[in-house]
């Protein structure tokens, strides 16, 4: 295979923001994640927790809570607004003000007819959910103090609200408070501080479970208003609770970074009397666990340390596989870096700005050529630099911008292309053709706009509709998992649907084969010319992939090809990059008996024997925490790393640090 010069880049200061809320949609098995910068991400539980959608955030967004109503996703935040998201187009559908000050919580009833929000001014506001909007219905009896947490009784007739030092139960019919439960403050110094009921859960049997800032999880009887049991879970705060669908298991997130599981078990074998018993403690976080979810076979948690952790409950899983693996999602499942292969430029996408760096000059140190701040509050949702390095495009939810870039020696000049075609208003994906002559913008309503780029500017060519490209341009529509191929701006063919979403794909420049990598780690190659899977792809499917390949828990986020050797395909995920040699696959695809990660073994072998033992997958695990890998024109590799240590170093200090022997 040979030697590669590797540009190991670590100056992309990507910083994910903290997870604030999680919500689970059981029918479609989608998990919505809200981050502190207002970003909402949708993960597909059934598809290896693949990050399907990202709705970019905005400045001063302060999302506090998420709620699903059927397929519709709502959020509410400290800016006092309720937002419904348009999940088809990855943007906000509408925003309405609740007029109750900052909103601390939002929750829907099981019937999906109403939303309740808890406001700073002490009111619980009920909203009726209509087809296209939500409508304010009424306030429940106003209380003194803010409403921190809410939970509906599954019947929908009662609602429980956690406040400061007190929990109220409201009758949704009359709107009156029917029970008032006093919560004890902590002992010691925290005695003087109000006890915040961070989270409440109302179970169908009338039990209320609360988690508070005194570190206790308390079980209450809502009929009598009495405390049944109190568990001291932590010295600090209990921040979040989540009960499983069948109400037999409860996950508790604490500010120490622990997730504690409670289970509803009978104390004596064979008897009916059941009690909530503390069973397990998971320590996957270093900081506050702000949100936790009980998702049937796993506990999903997220918090200040920005990690999205899926901890499988092994007692509910029978066989070893994707579901039984602990997942820790740190990086987004999409590209934040784009690369001008010919010019040797790297474009880094930050939420509020873009940075352009020059690499590929062995003699000079890499330097920052450009720092492009965006206007407005919206965060960038996608960006791209053209292969020649002459164009930069980015898009937010509200606007699309294209710049002409001139780089000569040290002089960088940038000109905004002013007259853009009107259809180019926003984009979900931006792509330049390999000769930089065409711009493709994937936009709302599953349409792709095509424009020609030349010295004078940008000229709109046509819109590709799903039913209706430059040669071989493609857009993956993950929602319907249908891939359309267009040829000469005419629809060409449809790629057969695979059960798992596409995490990365590319069309080979010489063979016109479409190479796809799926979230479940399967590889497929589709010949556009022949409108069928290639022989290589069929062979791979027949052999099956090596189990070690399938067990990787991060999806491949980029596919590129070696311009010198068409048989080489470069892939990478967070922990490795890999060059697949398609010439080798016929004879030796790694099977379970052969060593998969064999680079070290091969190195120690004499040259003659290497051939006997080598296989198609050239795995390289030297570089870790990869955000981007690209093979440049001159056969050198650019590797963008973001060490997790550097991310951790930027986090605030945790409340508790594990010291040796404590």
């Amino acid at each position, binding site marked *: 295979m040979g030697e590669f010069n590797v540009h*190991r880049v670590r100056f992309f200061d990507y910083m994910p923001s903290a997870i604030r809320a999680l919500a689970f949609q059981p029918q479609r098995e989608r998990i919505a994640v809200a981050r502190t910068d207002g970003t909402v991400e949708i993960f597909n539980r059934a598809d290896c927790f693949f990050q399907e959608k990202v709705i970019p955030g905005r400045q001063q967004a302060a999302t506090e809570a998420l709620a699903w109503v059927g397929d519709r996703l709502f959020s509410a935040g400290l800016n006092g607004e309720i937002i419904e998201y348009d999940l088809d187009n990855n943007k906000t559908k509408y925003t309405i003000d609740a007029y109750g000050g900052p909103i601390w919580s939002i929750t829907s009833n099981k019937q999906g007819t109403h939303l309740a929000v808890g406001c700073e001014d002490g009111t619980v506001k009920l909203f009726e959910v209509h087809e296209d909007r939500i409508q304010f219905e009424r306030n429940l009896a106003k209380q003194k103090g803010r409403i921190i947490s809410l939970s509906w009784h599954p019947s929908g007739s009662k609602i429980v609200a956690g406040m400061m030092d007190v929990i109220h139960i409201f009758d949704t019919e009359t709107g009156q408070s029917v029970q008032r439960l006093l919560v004890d403050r902590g002992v010691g110094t925290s005695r003087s501080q109000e006890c915040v009921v961070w989270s409440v859960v109302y179970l169908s049997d009338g039990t209320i479970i609360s988690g508070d800032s005194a570190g206790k999880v308390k079980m209450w009887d809502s009929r009598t208003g009495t405390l049944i049991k109190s568990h001291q879970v932590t010295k600090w705060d209990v921040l979040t609770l989540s009960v499983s669908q069948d109400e037999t298991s409860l996950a508790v997130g604490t500010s120490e970074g622990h997730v504690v599981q409670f289970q509803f078990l009978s104390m004596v074998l064979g008897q009916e009397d059941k009690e909530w018993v503390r069973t397990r403690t998971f320590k996957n976080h270093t900081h506050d666990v702000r949100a936790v979810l009980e998702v049937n076979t796993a506990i999903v948690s997220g918090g200040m340390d920005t990690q999205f952790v899926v901890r499988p409950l092994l007692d509910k899983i029978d066989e070893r596989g994707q579901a039984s693996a602990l997942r820790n999602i740190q990086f987004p499942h999409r590209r934040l870096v784009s690369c001008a292969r010919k010019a040797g430029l790297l474009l880094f996408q930050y939420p509020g700005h873009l940075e352009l760096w020059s690499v590929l000059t062995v003699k000079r140190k*890499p330097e920052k050529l450009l720092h492009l701040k965006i206007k407005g509050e919206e965060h960038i949702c996608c960006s791209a630099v053209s292969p020649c390095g002459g164009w930069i495009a980015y898009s937010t939810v509200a606007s699309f911008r294209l710049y002409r870039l001139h780089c000569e020696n040290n002089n960088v000049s940038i000109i905004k292309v002013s007259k853009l075609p009107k259809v180019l208003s926003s984009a979900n994906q931006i792509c330049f053709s390999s000769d930089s002559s065409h711009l493709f913008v994937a936009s709302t309503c599953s349409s792709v706009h095509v424009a020609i780029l030349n010295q004078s500017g940008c000229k709109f060519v046509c819109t590709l509709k799903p039913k209706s490209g430059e040669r071989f341009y493609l857009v993956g529509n993950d929602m319907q998992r249908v891939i359309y191929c267009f040829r000469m701006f005419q629809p060409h063919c449809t790629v057969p649907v695979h059960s798992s979403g596409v995490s990365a794909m590319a069309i080979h420049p010489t063979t016109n084969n479409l190479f796809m990598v799926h979230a479940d780690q399967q590889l497929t190659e589709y010949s556009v010319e022949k409108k069928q899977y290639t022989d290589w792809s069929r062979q791979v499917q027949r052999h099956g992939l090596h189990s070690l390949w399938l067990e990787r828990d991060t999806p491949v986020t980029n596919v590129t090809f070696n311009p010198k050797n068409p048989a080489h395909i470069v892939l990478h995920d967070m922990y490795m990059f890999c060059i697949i040699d398609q010439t080798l696959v016929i004879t030796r695809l790694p099977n379970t008996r052969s060593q998969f990660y064999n680079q070290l073994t091969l190195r120690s072998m004499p040259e003659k024997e290497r051939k006997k033992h080598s296989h198609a997958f050239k795995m390289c695990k030297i570089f870790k925490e990869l955000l981007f890998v690209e093979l440049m024109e001159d056969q050198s590799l650019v590797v963008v790393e973001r060490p997790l240590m550097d991310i951790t170093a930027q986090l605030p200090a945790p409340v508790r640090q594990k010291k040796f022997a404590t």
Partner: protein
Amino acid sequence: MAALYESYTLCALADTGPEGTRAIEPDRDRDRVVITESGRAVTVYKVSDQKPLGSWTVKQGQCITSPAVYNPPTKEYVVVTDEKVVRVWKDEDISIEKAFKATVSAEVYRLHSVPDREPLVLFRHGAVRFLDSLLAAPQQTIEEVLSEEEVIRWSAAVQMEQQLVLLFSTEQRGQHCLYVQRFSPNALVKHRLETDSTNSTPLSYAATYRDGNIHLLYLFSSGSVYESVLQARPTVPAVSGTVQALPRSLLLKLPVGEGELTAASALPVDESHIAVVGVPHPLAGAGKDYLCLWNTHFQTLQAARELAGKIYGQLWCFSGKLFVPHGKILSVIPFECQKSSLAAAMGKLKQTSGTNGITLSVWSCIDTRRHNNDNTLIIQLKMSTRNQSSCPTAEQLAEKIKVGSEKEVQKQVEEFLHGSQPEELQLTAGRLASALVMRCQADPTFYPQAAFTQLVQTNYLCHSGCPDLLVLTLEKNDFRLCQLCLQLFQDIPEAVTCCCLKTILSFQDSELEQVDLEDGLLFMKALTQTAEVSDDGDSGQHNGFSREPLALDMSCPVGLHKGALLNEVLQVPYSDSLLLPHLKDLNVPQVLLFLQYLRFLYLKYSQDAHSRIPALRKPTVTQIMDWVCLLLDAHFTVLALTPEAKSLLTSLHKFVRSQVKLYSELGKIEGSLEALKKSKQSREIGQYSIEVIELF
């Protein structure tokens, strides 16, 4: 623990002159003091060299009325003569007469030097001035704070973080008051000092600043030492008119012997220790010429020194040295107070098996001491109801011990022990043992061994409860009891430990063979036997390592009985620094024998023979090594010059060298393993680097 070290004489005291003006004040550095003496002379001494650096006298007819102080900001000395004349001079000045002098309008009681500030002048009638402001206008009128009859008895300036406080106490018709003068803003607060229940008077005061509060310590002629805590900042402004009594707590009740104390002084030397002069030693009769260090936390006497000649009841303490005038000399006694904790008070290596006994023994030792001094406890005992009428009271028993025959006493003690509650025993065991020991000392034929054994085995006895018991057992060669005491007493002084060691070492093995030493003996037997077994039996290899090179001369250098007793000595708690001087009392043959034995033990232990021997008490390897080190420390020069010791020292040296080598090799292994671990970790790389990788 605390200890007084060897004292030395700083200077001779003059006979003449009023005592009140004798004073020692700190000079510019820690090693210099200003001594005002005999009403006429001021001398600066370098303490470590014991020599005067400068001396000034006033003219005949004049008299120093306030001791000289050093003024740090101006580097001058200040003294008051004839109550109103302030004299200021420098080091270079040859005569005070030629130096600066100012006459002030009121009588000065005392000058107080304060670090980094102008000295304070306290006038006889309570007014206070800074020296610089006073000298700026010497004839300024001085207000009278105190009434005519109120006389200042003591004064002190206390420097806190930012604030300065002047304290002085007055006496007026038997009424004692304390004044607290604060500066900026000036405020004077008066407190009443309650006297003791009897008509005793305060003899000495001492004020220290600690943890944000002023701790005032005062000693009454009845022997009570009280402590009052004054807050550095007054929380409530004092209500004029009412004089409140100063809240106080009894820190210590010193034994006074007959009569009251007359000239005595107490001085806090650290948080938990006070030095007392002029108070009798609790165990040495009525003589008051002692300097004692008491631990106030545990109420124990830590160290004492008898002083020759008249005691003036004066005491100073600067930089770890006590200054005591007595007879015709001024002695300097360096001292050391270690951090006071129960563990420290008990010495090193406290035995885990007897943790319960430790606390008990401490308390019983306090109780018995108090008991000796006042009779309250006896009254309590008399009043306590008894469940068995036949059982004698402790009081009766003590009387009986004085006269009864050995058998009677034996029987009585047995009955008493059977019939008493544990709490009572705790209070009385020490007293009974003391009584028994006294009788034994008085009457050489009287020795109720069984009674002693029973008393010791109650676990309520400790060394401080009956200090002479252990020595008595040695005198009577009762090694069984001696072993028991060594096992059960947690507070044996190092001197006594050494005494035991010496006696045991000097005894012939044959004489010891009759003693029944139970468990200790079994351990020794097992230890010597395993040597034989392992020599011929499974001297095989462990992990491929053969022990052959270590199989040196393995015969036990002492008899089994002696060995067992020595093992007990090894397990006695001690403090290094306090044991070392006493170890020097051993003679060379004893040291050699002991070292040989320790080497024998160590070699045995390094073959891990001991771990296979089930024994309740056995010395640990650390204990053995500590003793070897201490012995060598104490006797190294002597041993180096003794031809007999040569082979022993060489073998020890050889052994140590091999151990050092082993550890250095282990260190290297550790280092290389560490390096291996590091090489696995990714090396530090910067923001950007170009690397070459090869894929196959």
